[in-house]
């Protein structure tokens, strides 16, 4: 066990001693600050103080007026279909008023919540790391020195895989914490457990921002782990990081299209990407294919995961390390 710990330290050292890794964090930081600046420009800075009811009503009057102006400019037929650009906001304001909920101002927590999309970038970076961690040893020729030690190849491979997962974890933490800090600087913090009103499948509901953060990031993590494991497998099989990065990113991008393309086939539900988004089973959502269930998707994910790891193990432990 302690030997394994040393292996983890070694892998971390090799990862974090290189500038390219830090450039990744630098890029993430720049993107987060950029998003903060962007949100700062586009959020309305209306204060909902003790007179929030009046403020909301005034807001609604203004919005309704705008809507009417809009409809006057439209042909009659269209106006019946489209209630106007502000109807969504009006409904939301009405929900606040009807349920007597004081609107929460935009703050660090909501900024973190919105940055959920950054997990795609974290996935990308994790794929890059996963694709290189084995292949680079072959490229550098250091694999020979790495393997001629009294440690099984399986253990060395595991230390590399765990390092990839830890990298994803650290990077995720970085996104969460740095977003929160940037959010706090730009928008302030509205309490420790703020609630907001959001539109869920056509109905408004009040939800905890923290639980939204958890589920939003959580659902995306499944795809992240699966794609990183896939890249790791390709990298151990082909001993080439470019192929692994290319394939994994291509599949990550094309995943949904692949499922849509084959949607009418009987086996479509067994495609990995039909199952990576477990939020399809969340309240009010409907799954890709009607007869799919949460249990089914989890089983499919587990089977893929085991296949990815088993193939990595097989190729890494059984194959000769020969010259180029």
């Amino acid at each position, binding site marked *: 066990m302690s*030997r394994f710990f*040393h*292996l983890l*330290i*070694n892998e971390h*050292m*090799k990862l974090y*001693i*290189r500038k390219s890794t830090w450039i990744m964090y630098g890029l993430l930081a720049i993107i987060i600050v950029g998003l903060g600046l962007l949100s700062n420009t586009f959020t309305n800075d209306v204060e909902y103080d003790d007179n929030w009811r009046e403020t909301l009503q005034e807001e609604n009057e203004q919005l309704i007026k705008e809507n009417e102006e809009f409809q006057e400019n439209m042909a009659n037929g269209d106006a019946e279909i489209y209630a106007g650009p502000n109807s969504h906001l009006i409904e939301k304001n009405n929900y606040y008023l009807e349920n007597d909920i004081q609107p929460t101002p935009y703050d660090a927590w909501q900024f973190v919540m919105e940055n959920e999309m950054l997990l795609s970038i974290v996935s990308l970076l994790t794929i890059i790391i996963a694709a290189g961690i084995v292949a680079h040893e072959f490229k*550098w*020729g*250091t694999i*020979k*020195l*790495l*393997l*001629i*030690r*009294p*440690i*099984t190849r399986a253990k060395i491979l595991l230390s590399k895989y765990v390092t990839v997962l830890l990298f994803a974890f650290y990077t995720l933490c970085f996104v969460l914490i740095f977003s929160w800090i940037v959010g706090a600087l730009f928008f302030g913090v509205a309490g420790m457990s703020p609630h907001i009103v959001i539109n869920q499948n056509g109905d408004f509901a009040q939800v905890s921002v923290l639980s939204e953060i958890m589920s939003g990031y959580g659902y995306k993590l499944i795809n992240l782990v699966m794609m990183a494991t896939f890249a790791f497998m390709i990298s151990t099989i082909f001993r080439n990081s470019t192929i692994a990065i290319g394939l994994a990113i291509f599949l990550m991008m094309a995943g949904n299209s692949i499922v849509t393309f084959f949607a009418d086939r009987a086996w479509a539900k067994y495609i990995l990407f039909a199952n990576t988004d477990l939020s399809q089973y969340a309240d009010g959502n409907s799954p890709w294919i009607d007869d799919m269930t949460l249990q089914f998707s989890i089983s499919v994910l587990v089977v893929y995961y085991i296949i990815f790891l088993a193939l990595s193990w097989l190729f890494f432990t059984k194959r*000769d*390390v*020969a*010259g180029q």
Partner: protein
Amino acid sequence: MTEQAMELINVRKQIGKKEIIKDLSFTIQKGEVFGFIGPNGAGKTTTIRMMVGLMKLTDGDVRILGKSIKTNYKEAIREVGAIVENPEMYPFMSGWRNLQHFSAMIPSITKERIEEVVRLVGLEKVITEKVGRYSLGMRQRLGIAQALLHKPSVLILDEPTNGLDPAGIREIRHYIRRLATEENVAVIISSHLLAEIEQMCDRIGIIKNGELITTQSVQDTMEQVDLQQVEMEVSPIEQAIDLLKEKHELNATEKDGTLHFQSTKEVIPVIIQTFVQHEIAIYQVGVSKTTLEDKFFDLIGENAIE
């Protein structure tokens, strides 16, 4: 002491249909420096890869201090330090960090031990510099340092003299000899240039096309170096052979109607005198110097594969 450090038993390697190593067997004793010589493509690196478990054996076994690399890998490899092909290290880390990295993979290597091997290979001044900036010679030394960290019983160096100047080779020879005599390490050095390593070896094995052609002790061959290969056309040949045996204690053979034997340069005129005295007709005398190098080329032949 003649304890076996490493033993190759009928080792074979086949990749696809090609038989790269054909039934290789030899042993290396503790404290012995074994030169593994052969032209490029002969199979030296492949053999070494099998010795350290990077490649599987198609057939046969490799035993290190009696432990099989196939069935007892961890115990066997613990006794081995090696450089395979090129001394590749992580270029973005310092020499020191590289050594730290590899020492963390083996139990109980202290900081003092790392310092000791750095001193042994003489890299103290550059050890904190990035390996990417090292010359090939410095990388070779760092490679050797890495191989010595855990005090192995068997040290395997694949072409360690590649890219070194004569001074560098002399230096490597110096500490390899010291490891063998003082620490009783068995050293296996491969090279495609006999001249570069013959002086540091106790014994050499010559490999060609995946076959071990011969192993011989360097002592033997060194003695032979002073000997001349003499070829004489004489008649009658039988009497000449008898005379050589009688008067000069030389074993001569007859080949294609000519007389062949080895002797030092000084005795050749004496032999001729003897023949003249016994009325043996001498038509022709040919002398060629046999060095180890020549012997090597004799053995591997002209058509050395690249």
